[in-house]
């Protein structure tokens, strides 16, 4: 009789053990299944990764944002790297970054301020360091980056878009033809949007192009077939949605600078009398035969030259006049600047708006940007509750300020261009008078007019009556800006520079 090991079990025990093992496997399988489904549910419900689109002359790129302490943060080193030579060094809680071997910024973990070239910069939130990566709140970039880059930076924080320098691509939209109507978009630089159509609308998404809003984000055309187009921005991209009552398609021309929205061939046949548009296939993907990378100014290192520089006065901490409990001068000047840009560009005049957001910009910086751009005309915009109508100002030069050798005096830099500025102010005044707007032109001790090298005027817009809310009315704003733009366009030859 063979020996039976004490560990050997009877068939009944063996069966029992197998059942027990199976039960353990089942429990484990259920546990992992539940874990997997919970992970999937969590991941599907998690918000999409946020990004920051950065547009600059050197490069257009996107960076991931991280959320800490209820704020969006971005790595400063990663942000500056495509723009120049950057090195960073962490020492305990201190973090130092050096940009282009000359500009140094000192940061300290937990501090709300940083020192850039010895000057304090407000971060609007704590500086953080993760794996020796310096993280700054996205909201601080508008004031922090100009310290490093030495130029204007415009941050659209809510949309996750950052514009470095004069990079913005503007556009105008106009309706051509009645039957069928064609909506023509002209862009100041080539564009290559992703186009999607759905019943009642066509959407163009610009993820790589620094497209900025026109004076009003909603453009109406008074046409039943294509009644309106809406500009919006968010998720690090901009979009233009064209509303149409019939199916429409987009065609590209002028090397991507013009997009024409027109009814499809089938749709046109339903519009009596039929007048087919240019045959082109409906676009539902990135436009064919268009450059894949946004060829704005990124491909061209030479800065764009603007004919006109429009300056929305005040901004940031400088509110200007408090026009009412809810209305600040700085907000009206931005709206006026955008409206004037649209009016000028519709007349073929390239325009730079110096302040296109609620940013702090010192008067000296405004003059530096205008002078560096060698614009043919500088227009500062102001708004006031005092008086009626419009005042057009030229510089009232201060005492002294004689030029020293080849160097122009900063305080009287305007002296040589003043006669031309006065001529232009007279033309603007005449155009406003022609449109029945009360107007007065006179010199004013208003900076930075006296610091501008070229022709420079300031336009102060007051309501025509006593109602300050008229300043917010797009009709009134356009009435004024259209007159100013017409006068500038008429003086184009006199101003002596080509757009």
């Amino acid at each position, binding site marked *: 009789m063979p020996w039976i090991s004490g560990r050997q079990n009877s068939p009944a025990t063996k069966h029992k053990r197998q059942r027990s093992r199976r039960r353990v496997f089942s429990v484990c399988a259920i546990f992992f299944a539940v874990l997997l489904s919970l992970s999937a549910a969590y991941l599907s419900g998690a918000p999409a990764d946020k990004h920051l689109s950065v547009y600059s002359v050197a490069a257009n790129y996107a960076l991931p944002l991280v959320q800490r302490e209820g704020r969006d943060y971005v790595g400063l080193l990663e942000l500056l790297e495509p723009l120049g030579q950057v090195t960073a060094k962490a020492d305990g809680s201190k973090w130092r970054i050096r940009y282009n071997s000359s500009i140094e910024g000192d940061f300290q973990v937990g501090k709300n301020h940083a020192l850039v070239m010895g000057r304090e910069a407000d971060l609007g939130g704590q500086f953080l360091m993760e794996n020796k990566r310096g993280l700054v709140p996205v909201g601080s970039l508008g004031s922090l980056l100009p310290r490093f880059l030495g130029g204007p930076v415009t941050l659209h924080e809510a949309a996750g878009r950052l514009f470095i320098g004069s990079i913005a691509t503007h556009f105008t939209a106009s309706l051509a033809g009645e039957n069928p109507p064609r909506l023509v978009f002209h862009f100041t630089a080539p564009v290559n949007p992703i186009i999607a159509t759905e019943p009642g609308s066509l959407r163009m998404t610009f993820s790589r192009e620094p497209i900025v809003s026109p004076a009003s984000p909603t453009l109406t055309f008074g046409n039943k077939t294509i009644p309106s187009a809406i500009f919006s921005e968010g998720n690090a991209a901009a979009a233009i949605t064209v509303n149409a009552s019939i199916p429409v398609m987009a065609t590209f021309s002028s090397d991507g600078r013009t997009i024409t929205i027109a009814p499809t061939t089938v749709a046109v046949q339903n519009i009596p009398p039929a007048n087919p548009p240019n045959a082109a296939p409906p676009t539902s993907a990135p436009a064919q035969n268009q450059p894949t990378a946004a060829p704005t100014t990124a491909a061209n290192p030479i800065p764009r030259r603007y004919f006109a520089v429009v300056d929305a006065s*005040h901004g940031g901490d400088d509110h200007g006049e408090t026009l009412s409990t809810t209305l600040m001068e700085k907000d009206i000047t931005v709206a006026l600047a955008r409206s004037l840009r649209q009016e000028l560009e519709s007349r073929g005049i390239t325009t730079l708006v110096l302040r296109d957001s609620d940013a702090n910009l010192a008067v000296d910086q405004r003059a530096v940007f205008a002078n560096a751009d060698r614009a043919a005309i500088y227009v500062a915009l102001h708004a*006031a509750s005092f008086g009626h109508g419009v005042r057009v100002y030229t510089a009232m030069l201060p005492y002294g300020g004689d030029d020293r050798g080849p160097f122009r005096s900063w305080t009287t830099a305007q002296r040589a261009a003043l006669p031309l500025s006065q001529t232009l102010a007279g033309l603007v005044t005449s155009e406003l008078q022609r449109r029945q707007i009360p107007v007065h032109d006179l010199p*004013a001790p208003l900076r930075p007019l006296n610091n501008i090298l070229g022709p420079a005027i300031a336009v*102060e817009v007051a309501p025509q009556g006593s109602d300050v809310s008229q300043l917010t009315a797009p009709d009134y704003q356009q009435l004024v800006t259209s007159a100013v733009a017409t006068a500038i366009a008429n003086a184009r030859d006199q101003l002596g520079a080509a757009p």
Partner: protein
Amino acid sequence: MIPRHLAIGMAVLLAAALVLGGYAWHMRKAVTAAPEVATDARPLAPPVAGPTEQVVLFVAHDEDGSLRAQSAQIPMPSNRQQRAEELLRALLSIYLDHNSPHVLGPGSEIHSVFLIDPGVAVIDVNGAFADTHRSGVLVEELTVASMIHTISANTQGILKVKILVDGKQRDTLAGHADLASYYDVGTVNQLATELQPGQ
């Protein structure tokens, strides 16, 4: 065992502390209950000695954005600097009136005027003057032009004018009119002519 004299001393000190505490509480209550004296924000003009003279003030008028000449009889001291101060105080007294054609904020005051040869005038206004001033290009320009034109029209030889606020340089009056540079009196007088009604 605590010596008797020490115990008595301690008791006396404790009693004194209690009495003083009660008195302090009473005084605090009395001060709180006392009616507040209304603060008068009007500037205090120093006494002026001198014969009354007829001068011309250039008064800003908001309704049409003009600068109008207005005669006034004011006592004028013999000192050139004090005369300039009196001129501006007379101008300010018009602007501080409720029915003024160009109202300035309460408490606005001219601290002093310094005349430095050759041809420099420095006007030092108080903080309230700038802090309560209305903001706007034209409204600020009217104030500045009115002051400079008044002082230069009545005081010979002034070529440039600087405006300080509480003795310090300020960038602008209320966000627009430049206070960082010296005003050229010739240019301001030209502006004043343009601002005359009917121009």
